[in-house]
Every structure is written in structure tokens, then in C-alpha cells.
């Protein structure tokens, strides 16, 4: 339970002759638990979903930069024929880690950052359902990511591609510890994803504000829920696969050993049953963000909200039936190939629905092209390109020509960068004032947007050409005698792509500069409702107070905040909306009716300690089994400490005792 309250009714007083044997003590831990609300401890041990959301964002951004540098190195190597920037070995590690970092350490956690920060706010809750598990999830992700990247310094990173096909991932073919780091690192971040998924599902199902039926839920929250269900079912699959890999490599199992009668295709099926839903896991949160932003700046509700919700859910379902389209060339047999080919085409329909609905949302609107809106429109355009190139290789025979070439690289970068990452950037600009109380500069934002858009099209557009010209992926060099001549020669477009990648990097750099400039001292505070927004997260201060809402809002409409500001003065079929209140007034009204007795869970040491035990065990499996036992002991101790610790700190934990704590103590 998030809001931990002592039994609200007073403990029935025993008859006067019944003496109390002892008074309840509120703490069972040995150490004084952390209760700080400022300083480094308040971040390290926090269980506040907002702080955790911000930390998710910061760490994900760090890994974005890491992954970006890896990408730039790859592009440098491929800028000309027979590149010598990287050795074959380093190159293989680079593209493996680029994909792994971007997928698992940037896009997913960045989506988790938004989900963590905004889902409770959007549904009118004071925190997530399991705040400490939330903290644990973040630290598991953080330590898992660091663990994964330490492989660079401990004998080399994984070099089998992010898909890590067996048997190339076996010790015989990849003798360094890189694959072990990769498998264990992903296990650890997988734990983070799983716990986060359960947490958010429970939060959304149980903790919505009064009046918020599922069909009145903000679309971003909807998409997050779909994603969490996908995670919940996809993560166990990859976990099983990674366990098999771990046993194959560390304990001489023969799951993928052909000589022992195994079939290496097993790994591919396991990986893609996870891997394809993973695509939607990556992209759906951004769809949610875009679906939030378009109505706000078009001054219209989302066109066909139920359809967008259901198409999101449909993508979630159908996404499970199309994994083998990654394996059209694997030799599945014509029947399977045909079936998966058709299923893959079918998933284009709900995806198309989204694009159409976005377009129709803007149609007839009163559109303001702010930076978040630019990014949202950018998503529509760029993702459409990615989606359409996707349709071209849902046609299986055509796919056998295109798969494992740069055409695929182009396709999924349009989907992931154009769909997911641009959506995340839209989210940054849209929600920045809410999260930090400061606006990001619109001027720099436009530079950022255009550099990013031009950069990405320069980088990934040419890859279509290069791919159709027959350049396979994952080649550390290309040679001139296969490059061809004329306008569409591979060499020229590789160079263009490499140049584009630096333009793109410049775009990202602009964003970072924008952040720094906006947060200089003395910049103005953001207005409370800078975008004339529509949903619940704006009915509170910026940044929100620790308890989110002074009063839990009661919801009557899909776009509650909009309907509190605007009134329909029309009659019958004629609608005419007039502003009746400003955002500030709405928030002030809520503050005036603040609830008393708000109890929030307190910070805790245990989540971070438990998370810390995971990479220790990981190193243990790779290097020394004693370390594994050490980590296991730490995990057990942390689990037990966690179990013993009450949700809320007792008054004696504070020094001097605080009012909030005293309030709690009065009940205890």
C-alpha cells in the first residue's frame, strides 16, 4: 500500500483494570532508517516516484550518450571502405552494445522514467502501489546497466549482436566474458522491468482517482499499462532464454549444442517471442506521449480515443503472434512463413489506426506549433516512414532480400528513433515545466528539433539505399569492389549517413545545452499551465509536492483539467467552449481544500542494497563463486531487513521529531 496509514480508528481502550503489557514499537530495523528529504541521501534512499522518475531519466540519458558515442564510432568506421577506426572485435562489441544500450538502457528506462513520474500524477494517486519495489527497480536497472558496461574494462564486451544467436554465443565462439556480462546484465535489468511492470499495473488498476473509469484514463497511462502487460509476459521468456544461455556458458549445459542433438533455432524463437513485443514495449509509451501532446496543442480531444486505446491493446495482443517475421530467412518452412507474414501485415492495421487518429486529431484543430508539438508531428511523419518500410518486409519473399541488410537498419531506426526517441523528446519539452518548474527554451528547442530531424534523416535515410544495394548489417568493413558505382553507390551513402550521424549528435547536444541554459540561476519559473493542458497531472504545483495532490481530484471527464477550465455554453448539437478559469485558479481551488492526514511511506536503505547484491552475484557467477555467495547473503539480509521495516518511519527516527512523524505516532 502506498499510503500507509495506521489503523484509523483508535485502538479500543481496554477496561481500566486491563494493563498494557507493552507499547507498540514502530521500528524493527537495527539501524535508524533514512528520513532525509534533502541532500544526497534523499536521492539515494528515496522511494518517491517522482524522484525515481527523474533518476531514471538521468541515468537513461547517460546511457543514451554512451550508446550514441558507440553509434558514432560505428559510423566513423563505416564512413569509408576498409575502415580502421575499430578492429573487427571492437566493432562487433560496439554494435552489440549500441543496440543493447539503446534498447535496454535508454529507451525502456526513459519510458519508465515518464511512466514513473506521470502515471501516478495522471491517475490522481499519491505514489505507486509499491514504492520500495519501485526504488529497487530503479537501482536494479542502474546497477545492471553499469554492470553491463563494466565488461568493456574486464576483457571486452559482448560481441554476438544484441540478438545473441546461438550457437555463436557459446564459449567456443565467443570466449571472452562479454556474453556472460551481457546475459547477466540483462537478467538484472529484466528484474527491474518485471518489478516495475507489476508495480505500475497494480497502481493503475487500484489507485485511480475517484470517478476515473478505465475509459476516462489519460491515453499515456493507457499505453503504459499495455506496455507493462507486454513486459510482464515478455520478460519471463527472455529470462528463461538468458538462464539457458548462462547455463550453457557457465555450467556446460547443452541447450544449444548441435552435437548433443540441440536445435539452435530454439534460441531464436525464445529471443524473438520476447524481442518482438519488445519493439512495442519501446514504442508504445512514446505513442502515448504523442497522443497526449497532439490534443493539447490542437485544442481538440484525441480523435477516436477508444479506438486508439483498443488499437494499442490490439498491438499488444497481435504483437505476440508475429515474432517469426524476424526469422523469415531462418528456414522455418513455407507454412509458418506465410502465416507469420500475414499476421505481420495484420498488425499494420492498428498501427495505421494510430497514425490516422493522430492526423484526424489535428484536423480542424487550433494548432500551436511549439517544440513538443513539432516533435509530435515529427513522430507521425518519421514513424510513418518506418511503418511503411515495415510493410514492405512483412512480404516474406521481399524480406528475404532485405533482412539483415541496412534496409532493416533504416527501417527500425525510423521506428525506434522516429517513433520512440522523438516521442521521448516531445515528452521532455512538454513535461519539463511540470517536472522542474522551468521552461526549456523554445528557440534552442527548435534548433534541437531541426538538427535532430535532419540528422536522423541524413543518417537513416541513406541506409535504405545502402541496404537495397545489398550491404549486409554487422560488417565491420565494406569493400569498394562490392560498393558499385553511380548515384546509388554504397560508398557515397555510407559517407552521408556518417555525416548525418554527427548532425544528429549535434541535435542531442543542443538539447543538453538547452537543459543547462534553462536551469541557470535566475531563469524565470515556468507558469503553472504553460500549454493549456488537459489532463490530471497539471492540477497541482510545478514541480508537484511530495504528496502530489493536496486533494485527490474527483474525475468526471476524460480531459478533466480542460473541462475544469472550459465550459460548454452551447446547446444541443452546438458546442461553444469558453474559458471559465485559468489553470492557476483550478490549482488554487484544490490547494484551498487540502486534505489533512496525508501519510507517505518513508525512504529506505534496503531497495538499493538489494539491488546492489544483484551485480555482485553477477560478478560472482563470472569470476568467483564465493562472491556469488557473498552477494546472496547481502540479498537475503536486505530482503529480511526490507520485510522487517515498517512502511512509515516512526517519530523517533526523525531528529528532531517532525510534525508529520508526530502525526503518525499519534496513531501508533
Amino acid at each position: 500500500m502506498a499510503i500507509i496509514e495506521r489503523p484509523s480508528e483508535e485502538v479500543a481502550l481496554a477496561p481500566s483494570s486491563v494493563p498494557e503489557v507493552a507499547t507498540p514499537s514502530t521500528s524493527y530495523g537495527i539501524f535508524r532508517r533514512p528520513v532525509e528529504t534533502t541532500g544526497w541521501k534523499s536521492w539515494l534512499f528515496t522511494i518517491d516516484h517522482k524522484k525515481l522518475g527523474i533518476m531514471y531519466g538521468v541515468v537513461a540519458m547517460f546511457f543514451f550518450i554512451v550508446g550514441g558515442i558507440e553509434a558514432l564510432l560505428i559510423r566513423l568506421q563505416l564512413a569509408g571502405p576498409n575502415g580502421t577506426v575499430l578492429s573487427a572485435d571492437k566493432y562487433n562489441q560496439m554494435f552489440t552494445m549500441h543496440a543493447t544500450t539503446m534498447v535496454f538502457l535508454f529507451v525502456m528506462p526513459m519510458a519508465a522514467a515518464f511512466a514513473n513520474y506521470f502515471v501516478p500524477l495522471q491517475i490522481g494517486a499519491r505514489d505507486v502501489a509499491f514504492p520500495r519495489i519501485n526504488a529497487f527497480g530503479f537501482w536494479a536497472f542502474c546497477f545492471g546497466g553499469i554492470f553491463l558496461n563494466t565488461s568493456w574494462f574486464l576483457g571486452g564486451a559482448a560481441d554476438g549482436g544484441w540478438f545473441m544467436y546461438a550457437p555463436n554465443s557459446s564459449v567456443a565462439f565467443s570466449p571472452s566474458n562479454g556474453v556472460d556480462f551481457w546475459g547477466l546484465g540483462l537478467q538484472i535489468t529484466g528484474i527491474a522491468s518485471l518489478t516495475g511492470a507489476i508495480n505500475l499495473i497494480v497502481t493503475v488498476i487500484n489507485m485511480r482517482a475517484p470517478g476515473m473509469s478505465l475509459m476516462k484514463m489519460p491515453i499515456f497511462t493507457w499505453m503504459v499499462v499495455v506496455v507493462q502487460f507486454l513486459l510482464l509476459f515478455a520478460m519471463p521468456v527472455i529470462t528463461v532464454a538468458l538462464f539457458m544461455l548462462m547455463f550453457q556458458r557457465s555450467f556446460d549445459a547443452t541447450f544449444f549444442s548441435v552435437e548433443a542433438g540441440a536445435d539452435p533455432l530454439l534460441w531464436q524463437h525464445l529471443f524473438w517471442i520476447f524481442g518482438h513485443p519488445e519493439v512495442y514495449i519501446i514504442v508504445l509509451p512514446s505513442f502515448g506521449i504523442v497522443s497526449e501532446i497532439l490534443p493539447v496543442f490542437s485544442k481538440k480531444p484525441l480523435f477516436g480515443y477508444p479506438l486508439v486505446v483498443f488499437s494499442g491493446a490490439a498491438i499488444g495482443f497481435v504483437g505476440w503472434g508475429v515474432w517469426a517475421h524476424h526469422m523469415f530467412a531462418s528456414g522455418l518452412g513455407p507454412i509458418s512463413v506465410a502465416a507469420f507474414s500475414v499476421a505481420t501485415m495484420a498488425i499494420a492495421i492498428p498501427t495505421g489506426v494510430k497514425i490516422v487518429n493522430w492526423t484526424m486529431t489535428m484536423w480542424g484543430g487550433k494548432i500551436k506549433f511549439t517544440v513538443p508539438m513539432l516533435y509530435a508531428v515529427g513522430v507521425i511523419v518519421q514513424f510513418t516512414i518506418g511503418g511503411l518500410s515495415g510493410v514492405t518486409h512483412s512480404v516474406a519473399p521481399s524480406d528475404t532480400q532485405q533482412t539483415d541488410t541496412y534496409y532493416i537498419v533504416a527501417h527500425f531506426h525510423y521506428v525506434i528513433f522516429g517513433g520512440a526517441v522523438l516521442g521521448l523528446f516531445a515528452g521532455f519539452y512538454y513535461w519539463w515545466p511540470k517536472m522542474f518548474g522551468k521552461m526549456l527554451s523554445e528557440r534552442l528547442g527548435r534548433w534541437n528539433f531541426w538538427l535532430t530531424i535532419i540528422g536522423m534523416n541524413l543518417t537513416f535515410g541513406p541506409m535504405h539505399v545502402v541496404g537495397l544495394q545489398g550491404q549486409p548489417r554487422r560488417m565491420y568493413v565494406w569493400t569498394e569492389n562490392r560498393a558499385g558505382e553511380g548515384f546509388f553507390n554504397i560508398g557515397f551513402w555510407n559517407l552521408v549517413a556518417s555525416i548525418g550521424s554527427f548532425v544528429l549528435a549535434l541535435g542531442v547536444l543542443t538539447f543538453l545545452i538547452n537543459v543547462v541554459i534553462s536551469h541557470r540561476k535566475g531563469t524565470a519559473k515556468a507558469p503553472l499551465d504553460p500549454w493549456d493542458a488537459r489532463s490530471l497531472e497539471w492540477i497541482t504545483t510545478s514541480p508537484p509536492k511530495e504528496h502530489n495532490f493536496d486533494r485527490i481530484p474527483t474525475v468526471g471527464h476524460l480531459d478533466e483539467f480542460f473541462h475544469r477550465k472550459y465550459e460548454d455554453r452551447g446547446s444541443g448539437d452546438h458546442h461553444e467552449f469558453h474559458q471559465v478559469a485559468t489553470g492557476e485558479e483550478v490549482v488554487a481551488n484544490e490547494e484551498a481544500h487540502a486534505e489533512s492526514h496525508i501519510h507517505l511511506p518513508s525512504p529506505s536503505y534496503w531497495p538499493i542494497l538489494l539491488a546492489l547484491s544483484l551485480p555482485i552475484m553477477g560478478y560472482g557467477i563470472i569470476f568467483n563463486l564465493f562472491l556469488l555467495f557473498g552477494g546472496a547473503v547481502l540479498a537475503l539480509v536486505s530482503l529480511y531487513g526490507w520485510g522487517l521495516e515498517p512502511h512509515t518511519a516512526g517519530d523517533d527516527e526523525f531528529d528532531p521529531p517532525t510534525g508529520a512523524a508526530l502525526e503518525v505516532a499519534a496513531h501508533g
Partner: protein
Amino acid sequence: MSHSEDHDRTMSPLTTTTSRLGRMGRRTTLTAIAVTLGSAVLAGCATNAPQDTWKPAGENAQKIQNLQWPVFLTAGVVGVIVMAAIGIIVLRFRDKGQPIPEQTHGKAWLEYMFIAIPAVILAAIAIPTVGLVMALNSTDDTECIINVTGQQWWWEYDYEVSADGTICGFAPSAVEASPIITSGQVVIPANTKVLLRGTSRDVIHSYWIPRLNGKRDMVPGRVHFLRLESDTPGIYAGQCTEFCGLSHANMRMETVVLESGDFQKWLDNELEPYSAPAAGTLAAEGEATFVAQCSRCHQVNGLLDPNKGTLVVSYPDQFVYSGASPNLTNLMGRNTFAGASWDLLTPECRADVWDATPEEFGAKYLAGVTPECLNEIDLREWLRNAPAKKPMYADPTMLDETDGKTRGMPYLGLSEDQIDQLIAYLLERK
């Protein structure tokens, strides 16, 4: 190619005023999209790209081409429609002070339509797709079977001798047919339905000759099929497309299509018995060096140990991780080496063969590698230190991790004299 004129448009300058940015942005976006789509369409017109997926040279690739062309076109049209809609929106619906629009949540008929239209389009694509998937997988009319085995990082082919003693329907003129083993280049007769039965010795590889057919993974422990056929003699390039480890980029293949007469000649040449180099020549010294240094892994059919007079049989299983090394019996009959990564021909001679007309091609190819045309630079570098030229796990420090076996050709420490001898010997392997 209706959008080719878009290429002429220049990219929007970024230094326009804020108020103009939106409009310029639209144009930039449109331009970028047009460039992308246009380039996809134009890709078919490129010249001389040996792995161009839009230039079919065989029946299978042609069938794929016939299907994908309209699909790409449809996708392009849909894309243009969406872009146009966005363009109209950007122009028409920006905030010019109009009243707050109606808070409509959608129109049912419109939504159904937008579901129905893509569904119809996709259905239209799906039907021929399923048909072609079935057609490409039909193997009943096979006329020639060649086994292909992938390994790090080259391909080995062996031609199956059918029950009537022919190879691909060709009976050898002089000797009894026996399996031909070759690597790097597979030679097939024109107008013949060839079936590759592929597997792998170690990790998964993928066989892909873009101009002849789509790709097919070759998986250890499994046998997968791939049809190759062409009516045009020539060399068709390909590349392993499933990431297969360190030197994945250096794993290539070439398919050579020969007219039936030329193929008969090639076949007879391949089956010709071993002829030892004349005594006292450099090549004869090369034979001894070969037996001493190379024959542990590399097989030359019919080679006799000059000291013992017994047949030399290589046992690469004991030394090489994947368990095979290329058969060098007719090395100079093919014009590439080391996984088709380097040419045995000098660039000029190579261009001569590659650019030959279909009519002339057979003769030029069958000429093989002549001493004048030999690309000694790459071959010498290779013999001097193979792992330095092509990244391989042949490092002696790694032997422990690979059960004392190398993967790929190790550094042999050959002297320049030995290399001279070997090249002289190998030049006769035709």
C-alpha cells in the same frame, strides 16, 4: 518516379525566423521523405552494384522483384498521402485565433473506413505473398543438387553425384564421376534448377546471392534449401548475412553461371587426375612445402607424399575448430580465396572477367588464374600472416579456449622462399 523533381529542392536553411520555421519544416520534412522514398525507388536503376537487390538475374529473384515492386509503390503512395495530409494540416489549421474547435471524440464511420482501407490494401498484398512463399519453396523440379556447408568464414560446396553417375546432369567425359569439392565460388550450369542443400559446421550463416534469390540461413544440425538458377552466364556476388562472429564481414560467396558447354569443360577440369609438378621446378619444391606445411588442413586430391608415396589426406578436424579447410585441388580454377574476400586476379583481369558479356564470359572464366593475372600482393600477404589479413581466432594465446584448435588459418611463419615455392605450386592447381 513522380517525385524525382524533389531532389532539386534545396534543404531549408535553418536560419529563418521562428515564424517561418513551421512552414520550412514542412518542406524539409517532405523533401526528406521524398528523398527517402525516391531513393528506394531509384535503387533499382543503379549501375554495377554487384549485390543490388533490385536487379534480378534469375527466375527466383525475378519473382520476388515482381512482388516487391508494387508493394514498395503502394507504401510510397500511402506515405505521400499521409505527408500530404500533414502538410494540409500544417497549413490550414495553425492557430490563427479561430475559436476553440468542437470537442469531438471522433466519427464512427470515419474510423471504420480508416480500418477498412488498410485492411483491404494489406489483403491485396497478402494473397500474392502467400502464393510466392509457396512457389519459392517448391523443390520438386530440382535438376542439380549441390551441398553447401558454411563455416567461419567461408563456404564449402560439394557437388552430388547422382545415381546415374552424373553431376548436375553432366557426365564427366574422361573419368568416373566423384564429388567435386570447392569453395568461395560455386559454378552452376545456366538454365538449370539448382538446389543448394545447406548446413553449417559451427554457427549460423546465411547464404545470399541477391541477384539470384533471397537469403536462407544455414544452421548447424539442420539442412535448409535454397534454389539458384539463372539463364545469364556471369558472376553473381553474395555475402553472408547472418552475423557469424569475428570475421563475418569477410565471409563472401560468388555464384558463377556457365553455359552448358562451358560447364562440361569446367567439370572435366575439376575431375582431372592430379598431375605432380615436373621435378626440379620451383613448383616441385612447392609441393614438398605444401605437404609439409599445408596438407594437414588443406586437401589436394590425388597428392602423393613425395617421401612415402602414399596418398596425402588432410585431417583438419584435429587442428581447425570447425573441422574443415578449403580444398585446394583446383584453387586457380576459381578466382577468389579466403572466403571470397580477396581476388586471385589482379583488378584489371578481374574487371575483364566480371564485365565480360554473357557470351564471352564462359571462356574468360575458364581461363582461370594465369601467372600474369595473379594478384600476388594479397596472396602473399595472406600466406605471410593470414590472421593479420582476416581477423580470426587463430591467435596461439587463445588455443586453450578452443581446445587447442585454431579457427581459420593460423600464422605459419613461412619464409619468403617458401611462399615463392607455394605460389608456384598453387599456380598449377587449376
